[in-house]
């Protein structure tokens, strides 16, 4: 299991645990974390699972995948250097303790 902390735009935090091998998007949905919609189910057809990786973790989550940058164009909130589609971040043991910041809007 991997621990992930989601920080809402208003600063409130939710600590959850999720299985390795799943994605940050699924971890948020399964644990009923608000602020991640995931409308296309992780098919990279929308940007409703947009998140900001905490700067201390940005190296570990790695670079954006092919096509991810293009889909981020339809994100509802500002796209920053730490912006990712959370469906494209796979949880591994090296991400135990990951901190994810959520945007103020997804649509």
């Amino acid at each position, binding site marked *: 299991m991997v621990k992930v902390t989601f920080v809402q735009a208003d600063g409130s935090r939710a600590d959850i645990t999720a299985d390795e091998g*799943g994605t940050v998007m699924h971890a948020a*949905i*399964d644990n*009923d974390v608000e602020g991640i919609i995931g409308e*296309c189910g992780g*098919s990279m*057809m929308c940007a409703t699972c947009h998140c900001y990786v905490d700067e201390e973790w940005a190296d570990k989550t790695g670079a954006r995948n092919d096509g991810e940058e293009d*889909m981020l164009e339809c994100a509802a909130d500002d796209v920053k250097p730490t912006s990712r589609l959370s469906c494209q971040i796979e949880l591994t043991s090296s991400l135990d303790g990951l901190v994810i910041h959520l945007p103020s809007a997804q649509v």
Partner: protein
Amino acid sequence: MEKIVIIGAGQGGFQAAASLRQEGFEGQITLIGAEMGLPYQRPPLSKAFLKTGNADALNLRPQSYYDKNEITLLHAYVDRIDRGAKQVFAGDRSIPYDHLILAMGTRNLRPPIPGLERALDLRTLEDAQKLRDTLDRPMRCAVIGGGFIGLEFAAVARGLGHEVAVAEAAPRLMSRVISPEMSEQFRKLHEGLSTQLLLGNPVAQVTDDGITLANDSKIAADLVLLAAGVVPNTEVAEKAGLTVSNGIVVDRQLLTEDPSISSLGDCCAFPDPVSHKHIRLESVQAATDHARLIAKRLVQGSDAAYSAVPWFWSDQADKKLQIAGLAAPDDASVMRDDGAVFRFRGDFLCAVETVNDAKTHMKARRQLADGSVTRQDILSFHAGN
């Protein structure tokens, strides 16, 4: 408004409930679904789910979401709507509403083919689970229908090592939704996967040994999958006296002729913002965008007309087909050197089909949202891509 009832707990019905709460609706929400279990996503059923069998990953939200947001999930089959009394009847239960949202979706089209009862479906989670259980040893599969679902299944089944034949009545693949040029790219893909394609040759019979085509040729198969399209679930609306014409007819605000009844998603026929003709779309995008517009109207009083650009996708082997916009089968097409296809109605861009090219897809969504993009604009704009 105190009570909103939603018939249909698919992605559109779920989104309507979620958006109503998000917009601040504080009354009762009842979400009625015919299937057991929590509302789930259908697109992965013909893709990831067939490989992994992980049903939990399909749930749109966990049970705690419905509890927390006070959304009542009801497993029932609605038989009747009494518009005068504003009540929905499901078996011996009656549920009153102030506003009713019809989100019943579709069911598989069953063409009058002798022996079709032998074929499996791929529409619900239950269907997909049954199909997956059946594929537990090497099989010869025959698929009736060369559309999205049939081809997605074919690609997964080939990947799992099964033999696959796809029979399509039309002379090309996915002919209802994509250009001849894109059909050709996918014909090559599936032939490259050693899938047998039988085009322009309708299935005449399903037997214990496989399928028989109109020209009398026989394809041996252990498993036959029906994937010949869907029909909208409109019977309850029709019985209630609402207008139905290839879907429950709604206006630009997605309201039926009854001001207390809206409809959304795959089961509704709504005015296309471009052509102004009534169309019916089968997509996650339309279902969820419809749901959000209805929620804004009911809660905020917004009178905005529906105007979202349609988009679709299909994952087949390592190819992601993305479509922005909407083209009719006879709309013109221009293929770029890299395979992207631009569709035009008269002089105006109406759709763009791409494969593994999110950049062009997103560019197309923006252009179609801006509207009135001409053939000349496209040829110069995309040339520098």
